[in-house]
């Protein structure tokens, strides 16, 4: 009974640790309400694994069983989502998420436990599962996202403790029990070899993730000129490259994912703060949204719009960070007639390639970074924001007569495709005759048409088309996301003779943010929108929001976090005193040395793996060769070991607890000589020491055994056996 109670307690401990890990993982992935269900389901997984193991259910039932549960969870979740006329959307979401995550968790935990019970080496997997959960939860903290894990960090800050200390304590508090519970009983060498193997696999996965996928967002120091990266853009509206100019922010981890060409699934998972804007004045944008513009695409390169790198155009967009001196917009600055100037201080939380500011910034100047532990950098901006309703622009024309022809061509360039013209004609049919020539009316008409006909969906990408905008726009239904709509609007407007360009950045909904002027900009709200030039009003942003959407609404902004960061940003003096010595230059982020910047690439990994493979083969053949060199009892051992290696290579191994004699007797059909050799080996090892050891006879038998085995197993398996690098490892 004592024994049983102990194993129950151990099982509970394992479950507690695994569910804590699950909780940490699921916090980021799942709707909060299903986390509890998933954890309970994982308890079922632990129990089932124990049952399957103690009842000795064969692995060829239990492993597919576990996988089936995972697959079923995914399928059911999809069915529930696709169920027409089912429960209300929010319930559908909850049900499908609950099904998905609980079944996947149960299946995953079941497999994990099962493997650990079956092979003690794999107990390390559970340990790593728990460890990685803690690490990934805390690693975010390392990248200055205070909210990860916020429940802990908040508490620590409130109590005046440095969060990292708390996190360290929690890390240790999880690591030690995990070690005790999961790999306490394994033998040391098994733990070490398992660990080595996993490190290799993890390195492989890590570098595959960073090297192979199309896009590797280079983490540049803020302020570096990012414009050059757009030159490498390959054509393709929806391609991942399309965003590299705007978003150099990803820090190699995909954090700055904008959803440009990716499907929405990867995007929705990311809800990290990018920057914090502190507005020093009240402002109600006429469009209803704060547009935080970072970059514009205005040059049509024959396939798509891209960043103009000539320097002749888009002079109103500031692309450099104010490192020491203020930076000013150079051209096309909107006159103040319809605008007002607003002071906004930006605090970057992620590294960005280009500065970000509310609407059109006309001046950026360095600001003190109040807390370099939390903010990458800070700068003051003066933003010239539109301060009148759109109706007041009604009489303005788009293209000023004084513009040179080149400039007009630049902002009006569109693909040479008659379909745009005919579509535009169709759209503008409804305009009353007196507005037929009114640029604002045309703009609004185009945008309204897109909003009516379009369906918002991030699950779509137009990657390979020659003219991706056409692929998007002339297909029914019109389905896409902000980038597609913005581009389509710009093409149509340009066709209508209106100067337009695509702006990239982030939006924030004033209604969803704190009233104290603090706006936390989230990367889930990365956005693209059209801007239209009006003579006398400059570039004016418009928003295209399709009325129908296939995507869930963006996750809400965490007001608590927003307020806290706002306070932190405003608490300049105290913070500065603490950090002044190390960060003398205001506005300059501390020098950041990231561990994944060290120079190690996929090729190195490949060589490492090849080296490892070579090493395994080396051991294999050295062990084989030793059979010809040993003398006496040792020689006999070498010979016997070589034979066992060869048998292991083709998958014939002694069972646990089976004596060598019984093993040989079991193989007597395959190789009768192996039994003789085994007895000779046993006689040498266990018999009277005075008897002579005949190694040559043993070698003869070895050759005979190998011949017999080859004849028995067939050529293919024999050759595969020679190629098996780890057969010798598994010899028992």
């Amino acid at each position: 009974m004592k024994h049983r109670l102990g194993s129950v307690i151990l099982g509970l401990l394992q479950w507690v640790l695994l569910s804590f890990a699950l909780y940490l993982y699921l916090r980021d992935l799942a709707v909060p309400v299903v986390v509890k269900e998933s954890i309970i389901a994982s308890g079922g997984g632990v129990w089932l694994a124990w049952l399957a193991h103690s009842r000795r259910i064969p692995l060829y039932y239990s492993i597919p069983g576990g996988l089936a549960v995972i697959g079923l969870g995914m399928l059911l979740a999809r069915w529930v989502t696709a169920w027409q006329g089912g429960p209300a959307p929010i319930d559908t979401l909850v049900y499908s998420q609950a099904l998905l995550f609980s079944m996947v968790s149960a299946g995953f935990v079941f497999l994990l436990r099962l493997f650990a019970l079956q092979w003690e080496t794999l107990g390390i997997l559970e340990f790593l599962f728990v460890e990685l959960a803690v690490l990934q939860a805390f690693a975010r903290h390392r990248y200055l996202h205070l909210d990860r894990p916020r429940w802990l960090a908040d508490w620590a800050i409130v109590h005046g403790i440095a969060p990292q200390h708390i996190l360290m304590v929690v890390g240790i508090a999880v690591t030690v029990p995990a070690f005790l519970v999961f790999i306490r009983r394994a033998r040391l060498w098994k733990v070490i070899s398992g660990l080595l193997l996993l490190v290799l696999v993890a390195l492989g996965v890590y570098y595959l993730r960073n090297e192979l996928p199309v896009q590797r967002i280079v983490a540049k120091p803020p302020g570096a000129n990012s414009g050059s990266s757009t030159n490498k853009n390959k054509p393709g509206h929806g391609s991942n490259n399309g965003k590299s100019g705007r978003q150099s922010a990803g820090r190699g981890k995909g954090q700055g994912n904008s959803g440009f060409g990716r499907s929405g699934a990867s995007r929705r998972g990311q809800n990290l703060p990018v920057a914090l804007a502190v507005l020093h004045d009240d402002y109600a944008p006429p469009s209803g949204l704060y547009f935080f513009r970072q970059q514009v695409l205005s040059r049509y390169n024959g396939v798509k719009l891209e960043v103009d790198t000539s320097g002749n155009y888009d002079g109103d967009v500031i692309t450099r960070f104010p490192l020491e001196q203020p930076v000013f917009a150079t051209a096309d600055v909107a006159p103040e007639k319809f605008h007002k100037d607003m002071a906004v201080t930006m605090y970057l939380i992620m590294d960005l390639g280009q500065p970000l500011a509310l609407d059109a910034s006309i001046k950026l100047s360095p600001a003190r970074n109040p807390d370099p532990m939390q903010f990458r950098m800070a700068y003051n901006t003066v933003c010239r924001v539109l301060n009148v309703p759109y109706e007041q622009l009604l009489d303005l024309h788009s293209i000023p007569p004084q513009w040179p022809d080149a400039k007009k061509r630049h902002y009006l360039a569109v693909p040479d495709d008659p379909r745009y013209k005919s579509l535009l004609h169709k759209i503008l049919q409804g305009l009353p005759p007196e507005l037929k020539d009114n640029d604002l009316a045309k703009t609004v008409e185009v945008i309204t048409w897109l909003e009516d006909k379009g369906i918002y969906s991030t699950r779509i990408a137009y990657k390979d088309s020659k003219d991706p905008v056409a692929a998007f726009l002339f297909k029914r239904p019109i389905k896409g996301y902000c980038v597609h709509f913005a581009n389509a609007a710009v093409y149509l407007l340009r066709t209508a003779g209106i100067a337009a360009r695509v702006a990239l950045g982030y939006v924030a909904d004033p209604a969803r943010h704190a009233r104290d002027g603090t706006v936390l900009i989230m990367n889930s709200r990365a956005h693209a929108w059209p801007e239209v030039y009006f003579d006398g009003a400059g570039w004016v942003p418009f928003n295209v929001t399709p009325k129908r959407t296939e995507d869930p609404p963006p996750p809400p902004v965490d007001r608590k976090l927003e307020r806290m960061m706002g306070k932190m940003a405003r608490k300049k003096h105290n913070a500065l005193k603490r950090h002044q010595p190390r960060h003398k230059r205001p506005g300059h982020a501390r020098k950041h040395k990231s561990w994944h910047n060290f120079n190690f690439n996929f090729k190195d990994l490949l060589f490492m793996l090849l080296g490892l493979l070579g090493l395994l083969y080396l051991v294999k053949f050295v062990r084989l060769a030793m059979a010809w060199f040993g003398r006496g009892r040792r020689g006999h051992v070498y010979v016997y070991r070589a034979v066992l290696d060869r048998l292991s290579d083709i998958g014939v191994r002694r069972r646990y607890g089976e004596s060598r004699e019984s093993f040989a007797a079991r193989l007597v059909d395959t190789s009768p000589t192996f039994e003789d050799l085994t007895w000779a080996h046993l006689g040498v090892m266990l018999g009277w020491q005075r008897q002579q050891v005949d190694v040559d006879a043993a070698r003869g038998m070895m050759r005979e055994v190998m011949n017999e085995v080859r004849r028995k197993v067939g050529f293919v398996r024999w050759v595969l056996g020679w190629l098996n690098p780890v057969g010798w490892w598994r010899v028992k």
Partner: protein
Amino acid sequence: MVTTQQGQQGAGRGLDFARDVAGRIRDRIKQDLIGRDDVIELVLVALFSDGHILLEDFPGSGKTTLAKALGNSIMDDLPDDEIPSFRRVQFTPDMLPSDVIGVMVLDTQTNRFYFRRGPIFAYVLLVDEINRATPKVQSALLEAMAEKQVTVDNESYPLNELFFTIATQNPMDAVGTYPLPKAQLDRFLFKVRMHYLDRRDEIEVVDAWGMPRQTRDLPKVLRGEVVEAREIIRHQVHVAPRIRVGLVDLARGIRQDPRVALGISTRSLVQAVPALQTLAALRGRDYVVPQDLEYLSVPLFQHRVVMLPGEDNPEDVVMQATRMVIEDLAEAMLK
């Protein structure tokens, strides 16, 4: 009528002699007993390693036949000691120790007491239903088994050095029995559970019953030959140090098992060595291999393990420890 193969006397005879002796006994037993080769082998191992054997089985499964055949195959080469080669005692609850050991009787002619030997004075003794007699009788017998002598009225009478007991007990009847305590079970080298015959053997037994037996007069063995064979086996079969270490590890493994209340004794390990040697010799080897351990560990140890309440599978405990030891041995032999 009975041909006796006179073995050569003297030293220098090897394991072949021992095997030959065992082979003759085996052949004789097999003539009477069908389909019990595994039990016969264990009985022979016990006989040649100077142990006793406890057969646990249902009535009518050939226990007595086996013991009788064994007794009949051993020929008395000491006619003067008046010890017969085979005796059988049926234990009952009203027995007294003197019924087994013997009793002092007054000789009216000489007016002196003399010792009248009980059935225990035999080379092969079959004790039927050992658990039916009272503990008093049981312990008298068990003392004799351990000491190879009996004491009556302060005088000791030695038994023959070839004193081999086959005891039986019925696992089913619990009423009116006195189960052997573990300490007494420890005196038995093996406890063997006999199983039902398989179908073919059982048909053969039924066919052969009552028919005139075509017995051949197979050669018997002499008592002295058995004793000599024991010596030869003891000295000529090598037990590698690794095996002995393995044996100790096996005992420790059993003791450490969480299901076990009381592990196996050191005496059992001492007894196990000759048993392993004998098995090796019977199988034609002059060294012990792990397989011998694998084969003998359950009959050797399972009856000596005291399990915790609620646990009832000593066989599993022993097998688990054995597998662990065999694993260690196999690993050690490649180094």
